[in-house]
């Protein structure tokens, strides 16, 4: 199986009384809470952590896009991916992803992803999320009634921009361009870089992923127990559509904290986990449901299946109502897997097999976790857990993984060595 190291890049210094004094971590979070000089250190720590994960042999490093968000400091994940392209060599670069309807014109995504693919020698995974209501409709002012149609059209445009050989005119409902002809073009051109779709639990998204042969990713913050219903729904739908159960059709996000013992893990990871589930997910409910964001089919499914309402709808309000904020509930709920290496191995194997997920995206940094603790978590997982779970799904071929240039043909990237001028 593939073990991927995901960073959300949370602002790590939200005050303790944040939830009491501020209505939301997202959309209208106050600028006075942001210290750019502290963010300088956060960004550099986070990028060190991503590079460290690449050095330790994780299959991919993952970044994503959020706007006006106190737990996601990457309005442009492409900037981070571009830096990682130079500071890593063999690790896949998973940009999870660019919210297509937010780019005008969307060919910008085709271009920037092609740049990352070229710089990295063909290591890009291209994620295309619709984007959350907070990011798209509120922070970016997109019309919720038009968002999905714009997203789908932008997808068509980006894909054509990657694959058509000649300059073409795009005559869309929302985008019209007389001359589409992107330079550069992606290295992965057979037919294009792998496309992964992070989505909620809507049947429409599952069907679309199956039809387009894309990887479906369920990026919930609520762990494998809450994710089970959704992933079962996904696999049931694949079966109906006559698709095989290749676990590499799917991706799943899971928080993990590993230490020498379970108690040590609790000692180390309680504060960052409670910081994340408390402060980082403190989102004002008024930003949860812009009308039209959730399709009527999904609304209908959500109303009809009260049993699985939490996991089965793309409604952010129902997701938010799920949340526990103290460590006992966080761990009991499966949001964060904690334990000794062997305990974590057992749980990861259970998650992977019960959800049948070949691409496991791990959050080993969360909340206000320090760089030292993050590196410890990352190293211990790489050394003691990874070798005991890598064998899973060995019989299946991952047809959705990047196909980079041969190593021998790739540019040698020298390590960064600042020239110090002798002052003496």
């Amino acid at each position, binding site marked *: 199986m593939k073990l991927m190291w995901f960073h959300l890049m949370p602002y790590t210094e939200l005050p303790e009384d944040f939830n009491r004094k501020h209505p939301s971590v997202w959309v209208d979070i106050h600028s006075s809470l942001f210290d750019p000089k502290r963010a300088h250190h956060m960004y550099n720590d986070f990028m060190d952590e991503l590079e460290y994960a690449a050095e330790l042999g994780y299959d991919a490093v993952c970044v994503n896009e959020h706007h006006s968000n106190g737990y996601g400091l990457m309005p442009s994940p492409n900037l981070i991916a571009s830096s990682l392209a130079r500071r890593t060599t063999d690790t896949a670069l998973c940009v999870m992803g660019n919210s297509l309807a937010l780019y005008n014109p969307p060919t910008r995504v085709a271009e920037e992803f092609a740049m990352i693919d070229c710089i990295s020698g063909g290591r890009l995974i291209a994620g295309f999320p619709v984007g959350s209501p907070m990011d798209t*409709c509120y922070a970016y002012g997109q019309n919720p009634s038009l968002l999905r149609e714009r997203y789908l059209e932008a997808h068509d445009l980006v894909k054509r921009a990657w694959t058509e050989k000649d300059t073409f005119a795009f005559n869309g409902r929302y985008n019209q361009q007389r001359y589409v002809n992107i330079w550069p073009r992606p290295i992965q051109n057979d037919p294009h870089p792998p496309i992964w779709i992070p989505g909620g639990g809507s049947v429409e998204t599952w069907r679309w992923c199956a039809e387009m042969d894309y990887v479906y990713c369920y990026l919930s913050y609520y762990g494998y127990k809450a994710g089970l219903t959704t992933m079962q729904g996904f696999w049931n739908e694949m079966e109906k559509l006559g698709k095989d159960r290749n676990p590499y059709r799917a991706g799943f996000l899971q928080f993990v904290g590993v230490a020498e013992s379970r108690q040590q893990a609790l000692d180390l990871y309680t504060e960052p986990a409670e910081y994340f589930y408390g402060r980082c997910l403190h989102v004002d*409910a008024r930003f949860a449901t812009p009308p039209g964001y959730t399709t009527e089919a999904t609304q209908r499914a959500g109303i009809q299946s009260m049993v699985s309402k939490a996991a089965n709808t793309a409604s952010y309000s129902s997701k938010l109502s799920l949340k526990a904020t103290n460590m006992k509930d966080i761990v009991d709920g499966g949001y964060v897997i904690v334990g000794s290496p062997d305990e974590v191995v057992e749980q990861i194997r259970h998650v992977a097999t019960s959800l049948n997920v070949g691409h496991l995206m791990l959050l080993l940094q969360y909340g206000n976790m320090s760089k030292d603790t993050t590196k410890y978590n990352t190293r211990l997982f790489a050394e003691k857990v990874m070798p005991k779970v890598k064998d899973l799904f060995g019989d299946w071929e991952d047809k959705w993984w990047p196909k980079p240039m041969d190593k021998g043909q790739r540019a040698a990237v020298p390590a960064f060595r600042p020239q110090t001028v002798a002052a003496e």
Partner: protein
Amino acid sequence: MPEPVTTTIDVNGHPCRVWTKGSGPRMGFLAGLGGLPRWLPFLDRLAERRTVIAPSLPGYPGATGHTELDTHLDWILAMRQIVDGAGLAGADLVGASVGGAFAAEMAAIFPGHVRRLALIAPFGLFDDQELAADPWAQRKDVLPGLMCADGANWNELVAAPEGANSVEWPIEMTRASEAAARAFWPLGNTRLEKRLGLISAPTLILWGDRDAILPPSYAGKFAQGINNGINGAARVETVENAGHLAYLDQPDAVARAVLGHFA
């Protein structure tokens, strides 16, 4: 009083419900946020003196087809089809909230279609110095108090009637909100100020003194803009103890003012 007569007209291949009631000269009503999930006491007051025709707008209860409409021109042309199809061409027209913005557009762009115009807290303008509230970013418990001076009036409008489909009803209510968002997201600003000067129909502007969505001061901006403020074409009246959907809070007072203006 008898129930309104229901007919259906076709707009871009989608059905739009038209409710008609009363007798006397025809007048049209384009409803505000939430649309017309049910017949209203306000419309009964009007129907005592006039033939009231209340077409549903695309996406609001009783109609679909909002998803066909991408641009503001698409919306205005749909309104033209609705006004023609409902037999309202040349009649008096009253529009409220989102429906008020469309009524104003009709009077500006198709002046022969609107005899006299009444606007109840219409959308269409935005003032950076005095922000309108965001009707699409509100907690459920706060929304009723923003829509009406007495939130119970909003709750009554959107409550599922006995026998309503418990799955489809909430979806319809969300669709009405989506239809409004589709035309007015994110600020409610359709640059209507550019066209207000074209309105020559005598216009009454009504505004609830407790409108928590659109500040009552916006009434003056409409009055200044309509017919470029010439010849007192527009008159402003404040409705006491009324919120954004003043016709729900004060049906009698609003109906009286409208009927007086149309007389």
